[in-house]
């Protein structure tokens, strides 16, 4: 029947009389409504109690079986015992018997036994009967339980390899905390009054079946009116509008169906990459990183990597389906077929200067693969061109104008709707349109001024970026696509996003070239018709491939091009396993290249290089666009939970620790795309830029690492060491380490340098630490093997919590006089209370043998514990907690520089935190 919510509140009487009484003196109209509601309520209550009755009965029967079974077991145990072993051994049974015998025999013994209940005498043989109202103490000689040493108190904790961000549900902020004082004997509420106001969450409660029932029946009975809704709302303690809404839903006779299952087919690589973007930590290179959280800001490097240049494979086929095994003729066939499509293009001479040609190729190349997208806009603008020929402005506004009217062109839209039926074809068709226009454009360009070229060249990147909508490319027919695309584009982040081709095309009409003129009479619909025909050719070619290419495959292919360049073997092997064979990839690659090459009108050979180069730029630029868009969408949902920004409350109380007067600053990678200026968040925040930042390596704010040669980075001469940073082989010039313990060989040394010794935290090269009972107080940490001075011992790990959270938790910890808080930087405090490693048990000493140091390791602050002196095996580890003088508990205060310890000493008032 009804499902209920968790609630601890006192129940109300099942029947609804109180509410009825309260409503009695309302306007007459209510008099008719209320009885209906009330009778329904009573009915619901009755249903409920009969439901419970039923459930209880079911449960009772089940439980009866269980307890009978248990009874059988207990009887069996008795029988086992009686039959098995001899009774005299079981003293409990014997005493039981004695007691019964005694009771049956003489009753007098009661008094005797009682009075003579000294510890020693005659009570080993029998039990003592205790009559009513006789006080007894030590009636039988007690059996001593020898003392066992108890453990020092601790709370079950979870071992951590590394620091972890606190998860939301672990927060104590805003929760009522009760501390039970063992000595005082009563519970203390350890939270501020301000926090106890727990706001009633206004979340919308689902309507329960019973409420639906009342709602339906009431309205059925007395009709729908505001009064009814009001009464119902009061009855449900909801808002009338809510009730009305619900009624409308019910009246429709169907529950609102949400989220029609998004099939896998609609997803493409972008969706997959989206989750990758959100879940994969680029700093730790793991999914679901506990340290940096998900939905981190994505930072894209300003300097791009070139696609991996693969050494020319020696014509070894990559597998049975390698393109190299496919008969040559087939390949040629496709090539020629695509050539055939527009033979005119072949004949076009290319008299233009090589320089211009290359630059154009660059701009053209990418668009071939992007064709579906750009082609829409191409054809759009081709139509548009007829309308707004006069405009040669390159501003976006003009483009808007162009693209909007275009969609209203009736012949065009009609045609394209037709294309929509075979989507892919239409794309190809549009592609052809583009080719034709390119042709014209090129010719025009040849004879035209350089400005056009440079224009197209310069805006290449933008254009490519704007192609990012490929995920939509096959979901809508081209005509529908047109409008949103061309209109939507200007809205994107980068204002100067201009489609270079559009620009060019706009200029085409003005071009003085003869060629252009000769093509001039071609009206848009004519072009389209022609392209339709050509599209069929293309289509035929496509179907000859066998399976058509799915979106995901196409996007994977494009990614593959980014990574491997035009190497179908690698693409197929690494990215398209189970989807496309190498030969298919090759064909696809070729067909797209043919299109491009025919368009470009010159040899294919030289293209590859240029193409891949342009391609690289294109796709990375493209990537930026796409990801940030997804990020924006996703951010709203996820960011609430894990965010850098909400984490800190630091600025309010900067504290002065013993040595340094400023806590370390939390580093967040900046996304600057050029050298960091004053706006750079890193600079503003006072941190160096790190390798995770987007800014180029030449950024002045970057930490450059060290060039230490022989010093092994162990002294302050090493800039890394001096800055309390660990060396980073990615950044430092000469720092390297060998693998393992050297038994597997040592990597070739770079020059005569020694291994870097300043990467121990990064490499987790820690000493074995043992947990044991401290010689001083509570638990202690001990060293297994002896170490030398300044040796790295291990890391103090814990939950990363905000300072505010630390203050809240600290209140309880201070009462318990056992705190595992450790100030890490201006944003975070480490709390090892529940999660940490064994070094959290190392005790405080004013004259310690270890010291703690906050190190910057690969962009994160971590706490390393180092030996202050030589420590021999088995020694207990101590370090100075460096509590702030005014807050330190008595045992950690400076003046009494004795061995006073952590756990003994009265509770401290303030919050004590360890400081590095």
């Amino acid at each position, binding site marked *: 029947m009804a499902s209920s919510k968790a609630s601890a509140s006192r129940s109300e009487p099942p029947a609804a009389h109180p509410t009825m009484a309260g409503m009695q003196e309302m306007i007459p109209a209510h008099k008719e409504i209320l009885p209906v509601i009330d009778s329904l309520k009573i009915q619901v209550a009755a249903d409920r109690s009969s439901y419970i009755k039923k459930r209880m009965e079911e449960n009772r029967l089940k439980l009866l079986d269980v307890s009978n079974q248990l009874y059988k077991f207990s009887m069996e145990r008795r029988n086992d015992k009686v039959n098995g072993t001899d009774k005299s051994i079981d003293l409990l049974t014997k005493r039981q018997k004695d007691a019964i015998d005694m*009771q049956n025999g003489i009753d007098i013994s009661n008094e005797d036994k009682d009075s003579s209940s000294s510890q020693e005498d005659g009570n080993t043989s029998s039990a003592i009967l205790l009559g009513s109202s006789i006080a007894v103490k030590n009636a039988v000689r007690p059996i001593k339980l020898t003392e066992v040493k108890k453990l020092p108190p601790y709370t*079950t904790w979870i071992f951590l390899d590394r620091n972890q961000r606190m998860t939301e549900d672990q927060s104590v902020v805003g929760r009522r905390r009760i501390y039970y004082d063992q000595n005082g004997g009563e519970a203390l509420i350890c939270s501020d009054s301000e926090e106890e106001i727990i706001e009633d969450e206004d979340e919308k409660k689902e309507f329960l079946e*019973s409420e639906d029932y009342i709602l339906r029946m009431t309205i059925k009975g007395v009709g729908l009116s505001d009064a009814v809704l009001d009464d119902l709302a009061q009855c449900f303690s909801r808002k009338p509008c809510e009730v009305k809404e619900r009624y409308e839903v019910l009246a429709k006779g169907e529950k609102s169906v949400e989220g029609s299952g998004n099939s896998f087919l609609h997803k493409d690589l972008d969706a997959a990459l989206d989750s990758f973007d959100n879940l994969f930590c680029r700093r730790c290179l793991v999914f679901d990183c506990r340290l940096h959280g998900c939905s981190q800001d994505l930072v894209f490097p300003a300097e791009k990597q070139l696609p991996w240049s693969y050494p020319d494979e020696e014509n070894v086929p990559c597998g049975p389906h390698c393109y190299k095994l496919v008969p040559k003729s087939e390949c040629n066939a496709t090539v020629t077929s695509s050539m055939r499509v527009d033979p005119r293009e072949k004949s076009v001479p290319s008299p233009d200067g090589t320089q211009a040609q290359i630059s154009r190729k660059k701009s053209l190349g990418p668009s071939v693969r992007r064709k579906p997208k750009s082609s829409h806009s191409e054809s759009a603008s081709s139509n548009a061109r007829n309308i707004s020929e006069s405009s040669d402005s390159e501003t976006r506004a003009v483009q808007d104008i162009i693209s909007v009217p275009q969609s209203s062109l009736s012949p065009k839209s009609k045609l394209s709707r037709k294309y929509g039926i075979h989507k892919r074809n239409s794309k190809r068709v549009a592609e052809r349109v583009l080719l034709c226009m390119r042709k014209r454009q090129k010719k025009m360009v040849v004879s035209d001024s350089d400005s056009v070229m440079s224009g197209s060249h310069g805006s290449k990147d933008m254009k490519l970026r704007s192609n990012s909508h490929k995920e939509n490319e096959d979901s809508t027919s081209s005509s529908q696509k047109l409008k949103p695309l061309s209109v939507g584009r200007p809205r994107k982040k980068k204002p100067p996003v201009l489609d270079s081709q559009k620009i060019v095309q706009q200029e085409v009409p003005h071009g003085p070239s003869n060629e252009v003129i000769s093509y001039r009479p071609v009206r848009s619909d004519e072009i389209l018709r022609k392209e339709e025909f050509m599209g069929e050719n293309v289509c035929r070619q496509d179907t000859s491939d066998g399976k058509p290419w799915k979106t995901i495959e196409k996007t994977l292919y494009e990614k593959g091009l980014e990574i491997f360049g035009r190497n179908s073997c690698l693409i197929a092997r690494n990215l398209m396993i189970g989807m496309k064979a190498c030969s298919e990839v090759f064909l696809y690659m070729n067909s797209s290249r043919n299109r491009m090459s025919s368009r470009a009108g010159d040899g294919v050979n030289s293209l590859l290089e240029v193409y891949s180069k342009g391609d690289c730029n294109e796709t990375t630029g493209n990537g930026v666009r796409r990801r940030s868009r997804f990020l924006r969408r996703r951010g709203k949902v996820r960011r609430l939970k894990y965010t850098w920004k909400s984490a800190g409350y630091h600025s309010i109380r900067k504290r002065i620790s013993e040595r340094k007067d400023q806590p370390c600053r939390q580093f967040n990678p900046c996304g600057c795309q050029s050298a960091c200026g004053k706006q750079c968040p890193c600079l503003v925040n006072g941190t160096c830029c790190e390798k995770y930042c987007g800014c180029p390596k030449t950024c002045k704010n970057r930490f450059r690492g060290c060039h230490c040669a022989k010093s092994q980075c162990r002294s302050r001469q090493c800039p890394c060491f001096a800055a309390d940073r660990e060396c980073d082989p990615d950044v430092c010039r000469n720092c390297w380490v060998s693998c393992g313990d050297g038994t597997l060989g040592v990597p070739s040394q770079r020059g005569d340098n020694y291994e870097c010794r300043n990467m121990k935290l990064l490499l987790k090269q820690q000493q074995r630490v043992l947990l044991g009972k401290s010689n001083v107080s509570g638990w202690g940490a001990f060293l297994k093997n002896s170490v030398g001075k300044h040796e790295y011992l291990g890391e103090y790990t814990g939950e990363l919590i905000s300072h505010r959270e630390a203050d809240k938790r600290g209140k309880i910890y201070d009462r318990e006089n056992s705190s595992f808080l450790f100030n890490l930087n201006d944003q975070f405090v480490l709390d090892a209370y529940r999660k940490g490693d064994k070094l959290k048990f190392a005790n405080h000493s004013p004259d310690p043998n270890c010291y703690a140091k906050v190190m910057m390791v690969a962009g994160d602050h971590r706490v390393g514990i180092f030996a202050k002196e030589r420590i021999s095996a088995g020694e207990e580890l101590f370090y100075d907690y460096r509590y702030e003088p005014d807050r330190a508990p008595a045992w950690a205060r400076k003046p009494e520089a004795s061995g006073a310890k952590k756990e003994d000493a009265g509770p401290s008032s303030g919050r004590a935190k360890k400081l590095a």
Partner: protein
Amino acid sequence: MAKIALGCEPVVGSLAPSRKRDYRVTNRLQEGKRPLYAVVFNFIDSRFFNVFATVGGNRVTVYQCLDGGVIAVLQSYIDEDKDESFYTVSWACNTDGTPLLVAGGINGIIRVMDAGNEKIYKSFVGHGDSVNEIRTQALKPSLVVSASKDESVRLWNVHTGICILIFAGAGGHRNEVLSVDFHPSDIYRIASCGMDNTVKIWSMKEFWTYVEKSFTWTDLPSKFPTKYVQFPVFIASIHSNYVDCSRWLGDFILSKSVDNEIVLWEPKMKEQSPGEGSVDILQKYPVPECDIWFIKFSCDFHYNAAAIGNREGKIFVWELQSSPPVLIAKLSHVQSKSPIRQTAISFDGSTILSCCEDGTIWRWDTVATS
């Protein structure tokens, strides 16, 4: 507190006594001066159904209920550490059927006493703080589970002395665990509750091989690969204060906080997503003047009745499985004024024992109603 939605109201028992049964004080013992925290009948072995044990201070005492209200002392165990204060005791038994007493307290050391031989059998060191409750798995009575202040629940094999599982960690309790109970029929399931105001249901199904392994382990117990169970299968927030007692009633759970009532609820788990689910509060059993923590209730062998004491020394006996719940009897005595920490109902419900803060044990027996 959230208002209970229409149609989900629990059935609340009426405090008017039904006079179904009448109980009368038949005996009263003063065990010592220190408060008694637990009293429990032996339900493991039918020979000892009339044997019960109490703990208080550093003492564990075994008694027998005889006819005519007579109580006989059978055994007494004293921890040499005078600072020990036992909080809980439970009957268990060895694989060969030897009756064992398992007690724990402030020291966090679990003492296993061999009642058949009157000597200490084993001591389990492991808990980092006091042990608040120990319960025995009725289906396998050499398995006991302990709830501790160190925020963990541990499963022990008393036969081999092995700590098999630790229920704590990422999804564990966030304050002292006050009570724990085995599911009566689902051997994998336990419920625990504590000062973090939650009731957590754990499953050891995936770890059952370790439980089996613990019976055949011959090496040192400390070498056993004890496993952490970090995530419960269900977390219920029924109460808004310490939850100090929880017991399974079939598939339902009885739990109490300091709100003067025992709540019977049904955990409705979602199979697909462990840890989530809803709670259906079915019934409530009011217990006036029961607003201090560490007052525990007890049930008879067949779960027909539950008895709970209150702050003023009165006992409420509820019929558990009727709907609406029926108050079988309300027991009060002019001299019983001290808070009753724990009660025990005998196998058939005819005898009710209570142990009090002032160190007394009260015995109540049914009187034949005319």
